């Protein structure tokens, strides 16, 4: 039992605060960790990275090695990285980098350091912030409430099939596809079968979390030529398990639900603003005016919501 949420604003605004509220209202669904995927201002050049180092005593060496690796790939830091740390062993970072010569090739190189430092999102606008702890604790530590953007996802995790570690928190980035993030409520029962197939194609997974697989699976289907809507629909019959997941890119948010109708999703659409969550009480936290709730609680459902006048490719 996890809690998931999504939010789309009709105009750029303080999306971070809404996502924190959506997850705070669902903290009882999973208190192990909380995470947010926030789509902020879109860049024409450069990527923003979010990630984690596992031992803060190695921070200086980590940063030197990481920067060298950027230079090896024709990239570099555009400003000093922001480091977030407290008494815990791990630290988190945010950095803006120049376009590498080849994004996927650079991500592959960066993953050679993943036993020490892990890139958890890469995008023109996407930033994934995740950590152990409640929505309020993660929001305070990473200043999430002040973050501005158009849309985003949230997740409260009750760990079931993998460890409670900061990097096993959701959302997951669809490594190495920029600006794609996922949150998931459920269990994928053919995880190892799909993971092996995708690894044979060259994809890498940095956690044992089944949700990481869905992000890559959907992106791989799209790389092979499917539209998002087709990929979402195909996932219902291809991936085994009970699930409701939401996947986001720079243009909007989509969702898919399994064949067994086990995991709920409720949505309020009001004046171009959209709130989605596992529970009705969460969407009512951010939409306080009287509004009808749409329950997507049937089996084998998908949906797509575009941001502003953008349309998600069907």
């Amino acid at each position, binding site marked *: 039992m996890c809690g998931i949420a999504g939010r789309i604003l009709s105009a750029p605004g303080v999306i971070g605060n809404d996502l924190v509220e959506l997850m705070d209202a669902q903290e009882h669904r999973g208190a192990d960790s909380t995470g947010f995927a926030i789509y902020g201002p879109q860049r024409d050049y450069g990527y923003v990275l979010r990630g984690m180092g596992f031992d803060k005593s190695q921070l200086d060496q980590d940063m030197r090695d990481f920067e060298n690796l950027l230079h090896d790939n024709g990239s570099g830091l555009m400003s000093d990285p922001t480091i977030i740390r407290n008494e815990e062993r791990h630290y988190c970072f945010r950095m803006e980098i120049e376009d590498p010569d080849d994004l996927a090739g650079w991500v592959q190189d960066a993953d050679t350091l993943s036993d020490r430092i892990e890139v958890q999102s890469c995008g023109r606008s996407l930033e994934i912030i995740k950590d152990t702890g409640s929505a309020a604790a993660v929001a305070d530590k990473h200043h999430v409430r002040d973050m501005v953007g158009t849309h985003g996802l949230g997740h409260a995790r009750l760990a079931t099939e993998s460890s409670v570690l900061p990097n096993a928190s959701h959302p997951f980035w669809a490594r190495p596809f920029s600006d794609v993030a996922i949150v998931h409520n459920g269990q994928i029962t053919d995880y190892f079968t799909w993971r092996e197939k995708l690894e044979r194609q060259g994809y890498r997974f940095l956690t044992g979390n089944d949700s990481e697989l869905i992000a890559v699976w959907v992106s791989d289907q799209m790389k092979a030529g499917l539209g998002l809507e087709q990929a979402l629909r195909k996932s219902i019959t291809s991936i085994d398990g009970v699930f409701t997941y939401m996947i986001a890119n720079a243009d909007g948010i989509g969702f898919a639900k399994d*064949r067994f*109708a086990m995991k*709920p999703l409720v949505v309020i659409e009001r004046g171009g603003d959209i709130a989605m969550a596992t*529970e*009705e*009480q969460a969407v*009512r*936290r951010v939409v306080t005016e009287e509004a009808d*709730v749409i*329950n997507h*609680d*049937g*089996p084998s459902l998908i949906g797509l919501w575009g941001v502003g006048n953008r349309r998600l490719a069907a």
Partner: protein
Amino acid sequence: MSEVVVDVGQRYIKEVNIEIMEAANAGKPIRVVNTLSRHNLGIGLPDGAQISFEGSVGYYCGGLNTGATIEIERNCGWALGEGMSKGLITVGERAGMSCGAAMIGGTIHVKGDAGPRCGVAMKGGNIVVEGKIGYQSGFMAHAGRIIALGGAGESCADALWEGEVWVAGDVDSLGVDVNVVEPAAEEVAEVDAILKPLGLVDSSRNWRKMISGQRLWYFESRDASAWLMI
């Protein structure tokens, strides 16, 4: 008797329920406001209690009801009236998943649609849904009746035991081990007797009654392939 108004907001639900229970035990009618779709409201209410919830409620509202009359203005979340034994719960709009799960008596009346697995594992009582019942409604219902006036979703009455699912309207698909039978006149009269106090009797309805095919009652694992649904 003067009405007691209970304000929920973001208060601790245990504290709200204590306030509700004190008013119920004093025999006072209760109006609950500012509900914000919160969970676990009005659990274990006693016989004779009268309570209304303004707006929508979350999961498990009215669970373990032992005879209260509960009215919910708009929607309810999962497992409305779970395990209730007596009383009446009315939902003004929509009920979420597992409405009436494992209830053993009393009546639930939903004026809109009900979500998946309505009446799952129910052991008695009646669930009346004016709209459509969702996916796999009646799943493993041991006893009692689910009465859907607006049709049923996929996998209706899946793995039913001795419960009954009555549907007026379209059924998207049947679950496993279901027999559809024409109800006898005296059975229709029994259902009309349930509907009458709710003002829902309509003699023009074409009922379909779903009961267990009883083949799963004697299920043997070597026959499992015959029951694969997917």
